């Protein structure tokens, strides 16, 4: 990773990513006209991308996110991403999309092809955090794992317990997780609190617990490319 302490950051607008704050779902980080590249990301990646940008002083990279809850309605993602691209096209030299296929069955890629915009490779965030081939190796061997990222651990109650209605109908546990054996926490950061939370989450779901630190995985190179293109201008 590049950059160091005390680097001068360009003025930014709207950066409030406190945990359990809705801001995480609709983060926006703009360097007020200085940046030449924009990353359009899923809200579930917002905090990680913002942190990564800060760690590396990618000050010329703007970030805008779509609501993470689109996850559960993937059919809405292609249109939403397309709209964001069109709204920003004139303002940037290049635009990058930090979304997996995310269950759009190739329709997101069709939109991106029409717009001439690249996205990070892979079917979903679990795969690009872990690395495509490493992810395949885990799931080919045994597809009965349920993956948690830092984001999902932070918002486990909201996303999984409330999102799947397990708070209202705990009896649905087997309908959802009856086929699963383990939770695999693919961690982006090393954080003892999150680890404890992930382990408690596995217990809550009645599943075994496996920890793997994978970091930002392929997202790292993707953001570096985006930042480099901005600097080249």
């Amino acid at each position, binding site marked *: 990773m590049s950059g160091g302490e005390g680097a001068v950051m360009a003025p930014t607008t709207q950066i409030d990513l406190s945990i359990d704050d809705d801001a995480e779902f609709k983060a926006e980080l703009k360097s007020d006209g200085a940046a030449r590249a924009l990353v359009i990301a899923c809200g579930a990646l917002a905090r990680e991308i913002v942190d990564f940008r800060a760690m590396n002083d990618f000050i010329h990279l703007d970030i805008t996110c779509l609501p993470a809850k689109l996850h559960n309605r993937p*059919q809405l993602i292609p249109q939403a991403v397309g709209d964001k691209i069109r709204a920003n096209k004139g303002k940037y030299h290049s635009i990058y999309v930090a979304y997996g296929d995310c*269950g759009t*069955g190739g329709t997101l890629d069709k939109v991106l092809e029409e717009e001439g915009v690249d996205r990070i490779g892979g079917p979903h965030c679990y795969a690009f955090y872990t690395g495509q081939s490493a992810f395949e190796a885990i799931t*080919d061997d045994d597809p009965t794992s349920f993956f948690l990222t830092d984001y999902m651990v932070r918002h486990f109650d909201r996303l999984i317990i409330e999102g799947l209605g397990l708070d209202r*109908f705990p009896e*649905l546990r087997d309908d959802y997780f009856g086929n699963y054996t383990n939770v695999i926490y693919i961690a982006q950061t090393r954080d003892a609190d999150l680890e404890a939370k992930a382990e408690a989450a596995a217990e809550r779901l009645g599943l075994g617990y496996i920890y793997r630190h994978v970091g930002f995985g392929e997202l790292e190179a993707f953001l570096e490319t985006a930042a480099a293109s901005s600097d080249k201008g």
Partner: protein
Amino acid sequence: MSDDEIDLKALSDDDLVGQMHDDLYDGLKDEIAEAVMILLDRGWEPYKVLTVALVEGMRIVGIDFRDGILFVPEVLQSANAMKGGMTILRPLLAETGAPRVGKMVIGTVKGDIHDIGKNLVTMMMEGAGFEVIDIGINNPVENYLAAIEEHQPDILGMSALLTTTMPYMKVVVEAMKEKGIRDDYVVMVGGAPLNEEFAMAVGADAYCADAAVTVDMAQEIMKRRHNQRGADPRPA
């Protein structure tokens, strides 16, 4: 019984069926089981209870799910309520010689363990008079071939919810071709990320967006099959 609870026994047949549609919508398992027993006591044929009360109720649930009014947890609650009613009816249906429309083998493909949609399809197909053999999740091609051979269904159904697993459907279709049995069966596919174009590309006969469409299409297909067989001078 509490004061605000409805006495199901006091309702006319029509009102009771209406109430069952509401109770299915609200996922009230015990109430559905009770109402099924009441209708049977009143001399309703099990098949009529199934279609008029349960299947019609789930059809309404399906419409509101499609339109984004109901969500997965609510649909699961409704499905579980219907399952309770089906458990009572299933043995009776067999005894009373309810119509058998056709046979289907269904399973989720290898690498994929999503099964909520598949289970709904199974239930609604059963409700429509199909015999359904559900081979579960994470099925390699061998499982499909073995189930086809054993059960000789009219329809093979495959489900996938992951973009990484949906191409596996083609593996199964190709294996059927290789064995020279592809055209003996109707291949239907489904799952949220699929579409018509994809279904055709993997060599399936039909793509269905939800359980209700699946039932309609399967019934249509069975009619066509019967007509074809009727017109065919060779023995079926």
